[in-house]
């Protein structure tokens, strides 16, 4: 009897889950559908109608939109900034974390607490001075902004790395040092390999942040070099008019890399998010 009851409950739950899944997917489908419709058929009441002979415009929204906001160069900037920032965050903060964990002292613990503090300060606190300062010292270009990402991403990443390093026994490192290895060699051949899974977690969290970040690239390099989020917001252009057709097409293009990345690295992403949430 109880078994039968459970079966029915499960069927009901399954149906509810289907509804929720539909709710999640629905907005994406709406955008996809509207991306092949003419401008005038998107706003207001036409949004949920399937494209028909009158409203279908093929891929012209994609062509126009990509041209208008130089989507592919925006994609290039986004890709470059994300990859380079994440690579440098991983390398530099793992080194920093190892140093401040293994060298005990007032200075290193002060550094540690400053980094933790930086994790809670909202970006609005520093956005104005940071963007002006970046211009003053000429790092307001797609290379210089990486320094800013490393600096701003430092907190969480060092925190997570040092949390992990604390848990690994000193013995291995000491053995290497006694064998005559320099700290550099010890770090790269003994410590770094052990950090692999933490590094993957951090890489995923930082990638999600940098790729989707809007304000920093907008303020620091936005007038000349637009990343994808900045370029999309820029479509709200020309005297307040929004070219909704191009907008829909560009939203689709912006989502494709994210969804592909997700489907391929799902396991790592969910693991990373989990680890990040629990530790952060």
């Amino acid at each position, binding site marked *: 009897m109880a078994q039968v009851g459970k079966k029915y409950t499960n069927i009901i739950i399954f149906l509810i889950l289907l509804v929720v899944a539909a709710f999640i997917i629905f907005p994406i489908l709406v955008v996809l559908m509207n991306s092949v419709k*003419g*401008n*005038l058929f998107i*706003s*207001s009441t036409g949004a949920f109608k399937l494209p028909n002979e009158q409203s279908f415009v093929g891929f012209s929204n994609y062509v126009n939109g990509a041209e208008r906001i130089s989507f592919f160069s925006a994609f290039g900037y986004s890709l*470059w900034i994300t*990859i*380079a920032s994440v*690579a*440098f965050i*991983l*390398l530099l903060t793992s080194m920093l974390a190892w140093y401040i964990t293994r060298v005990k002292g007032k200075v290193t613990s002060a550094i540690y607490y400053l980094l933790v503090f930086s994790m809670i300060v909202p970006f609005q606190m520093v956005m104005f001075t940071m*963007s*002006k300062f970046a*211009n*003053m010292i*000429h790092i*307001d*270009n*797609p*290379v210089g902004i*990486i320094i800013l990402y490393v600096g701003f991403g430092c907190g969480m990443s060092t925190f997570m790395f040092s949390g992990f390093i604390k848990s690994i026994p000193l013995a291995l490192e000491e053995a290497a040092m006694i064998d005559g290895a320099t700290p550099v060699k010890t770090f*790269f051949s003994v410590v*770094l*390999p052990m950090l*692999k899974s933490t*590094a993957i977690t951090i890489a995923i969290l930082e990638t999600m942040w940098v790729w989707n970040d809007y304000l920093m690239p907008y*303020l620091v390099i936005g*007038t*000349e070099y637009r990343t994808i989020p900045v370029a999309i917001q*820029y479509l*709200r*252009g*020309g*005297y*307040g*008019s*929004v*070219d909704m057709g191009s907008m829909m097409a560009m939203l689709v293009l912006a989502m494709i890399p994210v969804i592909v990345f997700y489907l391929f690295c799902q396991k790592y992403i969910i693991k990373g998010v989990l680890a990040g949430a629990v530790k952060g």
Partner: protein
Amino acid sequence: MKKALALMLIAFIVVSGAFAGGSKEDSGKTEIYFLNFKPEIADVYTDIVKPAFESAYPQYTLKVVTAASNQYQSTLRSELSKSAPPTIFQVNGPVGIAENVNTVAPLQDTDFYNLLADKGMALSLDGNVVAVPYAVEGYGIIYNDAIMRKYFALPDKAVDISSAEEITSFETLKAVVEDMTAHLDELGIRGVFASTSFMPGSEWRWTTHLVNPVLQAEFGDLATAQSAKTFEFKYSKNFQNIFDLYLNNSITPKGMIGSKADADSMAEFALGQVAMVQNGNWAAAQILGTQGNVVADEDIKFLPIYMDLEGEETKGINVGTENYLAFNKNASAEALEGADTFLTWLYSSPEGKEIVTNDLMFITPFSSFSSDEVPNDPLARQVNIWMNKDGVTSIPWVFNGIPSEQWKADFAQAMLEYINGNYTWDQVTATAQDAWAREAELTGR
């Protein structure tokens, strides 16, 4: 993982090398940085003006950056504080000068200023000419004469005039518009007026342009408006007259206007769905560029904006400019010389003038242009007709005296609340008054 890191490092070094190399200025060339205000012609500057100028004057490079809509002031301020600031920028009138007193360079000795036909149109600061207008514009109610002829041919029309040109007062305008709304099907339109666009960033047709006749009636001229500490909104009811007429006879119900941009309004006009839309000659490109445009060029005409102000039968459309160019005095002497060379070339050489009339489509205030060198679009021609019409005088642009962008934003929001039914018109009026007093004080009037 080590390999991956090494690869990334190499990639980084290569790319940074490319950037470092690219960011160095070509030796011997002077860069002129022009921060453009008009997004609708951004492509003309980069695709036509820039190559033409650079081949005429190879010693210069021209960098044109266009700010996103409604972002000009903030973009300008952030660009000006940078290490490579704009050489040429736009100010929208005396208010713009006041915001940039430490930046504007004297222009009285430039060739560009000398081109100006009426020297009185330039803006001054402490005895120096600091900004020169480059385009004169006119706006009013644009109507589709084909639809109007159809209406006046109706046997049961409620008015006794027989063409749109005979409309010379708010009373007649209202009678015609409301009767047209009663005959929508026969006229084959979906509303008399195009959408009263209120999508964020699209409110400027009401907060600046529509309010202009009211400001002019209250203050008289720009000089008075720009020093006014208070704004009584004496003609608030008149503004409401025309605003209500737009809203109640619109293609779009009130609740929906928040999703309409001005481009939507122009598209509705071009597709023949509406008979009238308030806008200026700069919108010609939007009408002509709409896919499926059904309005014949000769049917696109202007009507003054009537709102029952005294003596309005002798008033024409609103003609003026908010397009002034200023030079940045903190730029290098070579760049400033280049800026003068560039603008003089653009507005007086045969090649430059052709671009101005055909591609930028400006009606210019410069003596280097003869009366037949005006853009060939229907609205520019209409502006000329109205400026030279017997018995009417154009209304000058006084809205440049509005104390700040914030006033426009507050006024727009109050109008939106009125449309949504949350404000009475008196509350809109009060907001306009209060915001003016506050902003006037903040800007140090």
